[in-house]
């Protein structure tokens, strides 16, 4: 009996040696998934703008006969919302899904039956309620949700961060001097960073109408508890995804600047102020859309919407990052999601209906090897140009 326990322990040690497990790129306050994902929730919009936007529920249980297929759609009862990003509440029982165009916020229950999400609540009139528009990323803090908002109530001007309870009661708005894109929090330092992009009226217009004068170009450093901006880090225009290194007390992280094909690095100095500098070019024409992290802080993954590839950057030496591997031949890749064990990366390929240039919508899967090298799964290929009720744009993903 005891011998078996020892053998088991040894085996477990050998199997997990060196491995780091964490579901990356979600708020640190969220209860993380600690097992292989069984289901994906994918925030989806009909490609032709007709029919309700919906949450696709996709079977990711490898052993299931319906693996890799859409199990059901949970419709939200309205169309043209521009379904975009989502976030779990801290207790992982609810998903908040934001709409870039109508600013509606949808709350789904995924706690009662993870395979059958239910729409619990729709928050209408968000601009009137919050004084802000163009909600981008819902981000969990204890008992509450912070939502980065691009602009003022009429879709122009600077935005901010709106705060709600997990159930959907509005708490407060925190104004910002730029068009806020997304938040990332490092509780150890009581610091939150927000990145920035363009106003709602801009991002909902065709790309050739985007006026560069309206591009935001900074990260804001916030005192998290006080909800107060303490520093503005200026850099290249349109810093989108921003990721803080996962190690406890790590002082650095990265942002991708979409308009300049670059990766920038921020770092907190001893006195608490931040530096911000460009550390890599993703290659001309990449147009980076998303950035994700491996659980062990060894790699970041960048999707090149324009360049048609997913890049893996080796960040073992944080100031000198190095292009490690690519998955190429994938059109318009944008959102990605890395699994808790760092072995799989799902990606979708719709950016915004106003800027998508290819109708080849799909959800695909990349396997990441022990050497950080990536392989496109030749069998996993969920073709959203042939979605159940017509072509659809797949955007943000969450796993459960």
């Amino acid at each position: 009996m005891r011998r078996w326990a020892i053998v088991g322990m040894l085996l477990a040690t050998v199997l997990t040696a060196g491995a780091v497990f964490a579901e990356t790129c979600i708020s640190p306050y969220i209860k993380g998934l600690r097992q292989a994902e069984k289901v994906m929730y994918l925030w989806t919009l009909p490609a032709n703008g007709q029919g309700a936007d919906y949450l696709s529920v996709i079977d990711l249980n490898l052993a299931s006969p319906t693996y890799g297929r859409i199990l059901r759609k949970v419709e939200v009862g309205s169309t043209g919302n521009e379904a975009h990003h989502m976030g779990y509440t801290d207790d992982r029982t609810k998903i908040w899904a934001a709409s870039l165009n109508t600013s509606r916020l949808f709350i789904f229950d995924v706690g009662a039956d993870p395979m059958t999400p239910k729409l619990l609540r729709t928050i209408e009139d968000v601009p009137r309620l919050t004084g802000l528009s163009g909600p981008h990323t819902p981000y969990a803090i204890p008992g509450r949700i912070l939502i980065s908002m691009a602009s003022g109530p009429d879709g122009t001007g600077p935005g901010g961060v709106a705060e709600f309870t997990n159930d959907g009661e509005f708490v407060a708005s925190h104004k910002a001097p730029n068009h806020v894109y997304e938040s990332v929090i490092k509780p150890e330092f009581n610091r939150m960073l927000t990145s920035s992009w363009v106003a709602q009226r801009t991002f909902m217009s065709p790309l050739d109408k985007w006026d560069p004068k309206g591009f935001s170009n900074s990260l804001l450093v916030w005192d998290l508890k006080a909800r107060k901006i303490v520093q503005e880090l200026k850099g290249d225009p349109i810093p989108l995804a921003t990721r803080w290194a996962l190690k406890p007390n790590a002082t650095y992280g990265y942002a991708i600047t979409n308009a300049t094909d670059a990766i920038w690095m921020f770092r907190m100095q001893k006195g608490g102020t931040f530096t911000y500098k460009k550390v890599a070019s993703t290659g001309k024409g990449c147009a980076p859309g998303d950035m994700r992290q491996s659980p062990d802080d060894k790699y970041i993954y960048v999707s090149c919407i324009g360049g048609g590839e997913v890049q893996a950057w080796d960040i073992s030496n944080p100031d000198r990052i190095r292009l490690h591997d690519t998955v190429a031949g994938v059109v318009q890749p944008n959102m990605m999601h890395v699994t808790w064990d760092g072995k799989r990366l799902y990606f979708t390929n719709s950016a915004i209906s106003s800027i998508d240039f290819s109708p080849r919508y799909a959800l695909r899967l990349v396997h990441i090897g022990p050497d950080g090298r990536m392989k496109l799964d030749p069998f996993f290929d969920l073709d959203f140009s042939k979605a159940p009720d017509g072509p659809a744009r797949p955007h943000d993903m969450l796993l459960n």
Partner: protein
Amino acid sequence: MKTRIALAGLLGAVLAAGTALAEPCLSPYVKRLAGPEKYLYVLAVDADAKDHDFLAVIDVNLASATYGQLLTTVDLGSAGNEPHHMGFTDDRTKIWAGSLFGKQLFVFDVATDPAKPKIVKTIDDITAQTGLHGPHTYYALPGRMLLTFLSSADGNPPGGFAEFTNDGQFVRAWKNPAAGPYQYDVAVKPEINRMISSSFTPLRNYRKPLAQWDMKDGGNTLLVWDLKEQKLLQTLTTDPIPLEVRWSLKKGAAYGWTNSALGDSIWFFTQAKAGSFATKKVADLGKGCLPGDLRQSPDDRYLYVSCWLRSELQAWDVSKPDKPRLHDTVIPGVAPNMMHVTGDGKRMYVTNSLLSTMDYSGNFWVRLVHIGPDGRMKMDPFFNVDFTKLPTGPARAHDMLLN
């Protein structure tokens, strides 16, 4: 200015490659593509030679709804003539193509509508015009096309060269010397005014089934020519059947490589200070490789070899040009032969027919290899143009050009 930045950041990215690198393995005089390729032209022979030969147009625009599919074919009007290689004119508005069994030569307009090439000129009897048979390589010179021919008019050695204006007027022809009668490929290096040609086997041999070939009826020579004078300067020897001639892409570099089909080897040629060239074997590809094609990365860092017989693609690191090192291999399927590397060096298209008299597999396709930042190769798991299921039945896919 700033609008430009935005466009480069997003939409412009779709169109612009924007690197300093250029499409390798084309005449240096050919205008290069400004952005990623949208169309792949594949010269093909109906597998049982019952339907006509054709030029296939494949959609390789990643953003297109019909990406990876056959868009159209251009009928060459006759069957079983073994169309093989082809080449752009210097201004990239036309493609020249002929066949190894027939006597016709076709000029396609690919500028008016790159998605729909049109035959704008046909030369019906190129052998009568040139005294040569079996045009192989179509190589652009300023305003002209230089063609290599595998045989004389009677199908026997010597082969030779013929020069035409871009619009198809015959300029002149000349034959290979007695010391190097076999002909195959040609490549020029204008900076040093040199041209090198390689050697295969003539019609009397290659039109027979492979089992009946006389393996001694082939060349082992590289000929060095004065490019401007088109005058033979030197005859070099290699292992049997040196096929592709690839000069280093570096400006002024006076060296390059060739693949010996029967020697399973890569040979290096280089010019000494005194001006004369020498050859040496620099890589053993392994017995039974039978290298059908040799391609380059745009940065001169890698050579790609298709092992037609062993069904393997090899990437050789040539950072040290005379000491190639095997860097990576990938298995693309059976009998890979022709390859085509893109201007950014990130993709390589592959076909798998060599000659109808030599092919040992009927599984014809066009496939795609991605080349990573470290020069390692990955097969694209989704790109697979199945040439066994065309409207006219199976066809042998051979040479490729991008537009």
